[in-house]
């Protein structure tokens, strides 16, 4: 239990180590702890922000869905209208076409009738001439009677 220079030496070592620790060791760990605390705080904040963003996005998507639904309904309405319009137009066209075809057919029938009449008329005049020839037994000048016969034929 005797005091000597060891006592002084230990005191010097003590103050030196304290200084070294305060300058070169303690701040390292203090900074790491602070950095980690900051990191955790940032992480929590980011998570909260992400949550908020998610909620916003969900609200936005719901809104967009509503708008889209309304738009889609409009488009379907328009399409239905257009469809019925096309059907109507087609009906009209078909009716006109039918009328045209009927008119064409009637004209053709008329033409056919006229032709038949013409043919009949010619044949009737020939029969009449032949009959008259038979009746008269004589030769009638074909040319002299042509006009008369044509007149007769047109009257038929």
């Amino acid at each position, binding site marked *: 239990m005797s005091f000597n220079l060891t006592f002084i030496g230990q005191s010097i070592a003590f103050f030196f180590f304290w200084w070294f620790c305060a300058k070169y060791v*303690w701040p390292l760990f203090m900074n790491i702890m602070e950095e980690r605390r900051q990191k955790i705080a940032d992480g929590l904040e980011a998570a909260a922000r992400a949550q908020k963003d998610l909620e916003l996005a969900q609200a936005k998507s719901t809104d967009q869905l509503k708008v889209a639904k309304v738009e889609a309904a409009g488009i379907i309405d328009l399409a239905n209208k257009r469809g019925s319009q096309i059907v109507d137009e087609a009906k009209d066209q078909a009716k006109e076409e039918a009328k045209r075809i009927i008119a064409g057919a009637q004209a053709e029938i008329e033409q056919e009738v006229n032709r038949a009449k013409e043919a009949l008329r010619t044949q009737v005049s020939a029969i009449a001439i032949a009959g008259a020839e038979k009746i008269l037994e004589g030769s009638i000048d074909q040319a002299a009677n042509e006009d008369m016969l044509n007149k007769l034929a047109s009257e038929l």
Partner: protein
Amino acid sequence: MAELAEAGHAVAEHGAEQTVQEYIQHHLSFLTYGRNPIDGHWGIAHTPEEAAEMGFWAIHVDTLGWSIVLGAAFLLFFRYIGKRATAGTPNGIQNFVESIFEFVEARVSEGFVHKNPYIGPLALTIFVWVLLMNTMDIIPVDWFTGLATLIGEYVFGLEHMSFKIVPTTDVNITMGMSVSIFALILYYSVKMKGLGGFLSELAFHPFGKWMLPFNLIIELPTLFAKPISLGLRLFGNLYAGELLFLLIASMLGLFQLPAHFLWAGFHLLVIPLQAFVFMMLTIVYLNAAHESHDH
């Protein structure tokens, strides 16, 4: 087992030459370097008597050396880990160092309510340093001492060279720290309260100015008891532990092994506890030094 062999060697073979008393004295002496009081030369003391004659002008190379080696090892290791450490997920060794740091930091923020950025480093230095110095007590008593004695005998020609490896069993070491802390108590008391404030705290507490002598009788011993109790508590605990290891090693012969284990088990509680107590008391004393009783 080497310890067993060493002790057996000391007691059995050299029993005739070295008594139990000599064995213990050998282990309780320091490797002392100092000024010979007769011829004035500096050198290693060859006998405990010579070391004692050196008086103040001597240095315990072994305990102070180990103290500095352990303190430097602790600080360099912590700095190395702190340099490599990241704020991300800490790996094994960083985790270990950080848990010590956080433990000390928590004690400081609990026990020290004032603002002083140097108290944290002080507490960390004291705790880990004292813990390491105490832990040297677990190393079997004859390993280093036996080796050093052999080296001293065959390399330096010193007979029975002593070599203590537990710095905290040297009262110079523990008191060196506690008196340094006492200096800090005085420094911060004067800095925070002013010289007048500090002196009035000693003179006018707890009974007011008319009882000044009584106040001084109470306050001054309280003040000076702080470093003495702080240093002697640590020294006493570790010295007693060391002594018991020596008694076991020198007197129990072959039965020493279980006894060593048993005592080492108990001592494992004392080692961190004393380091912790030393740190806590430092924090508490310095907290009180920062406190000003304005009235």
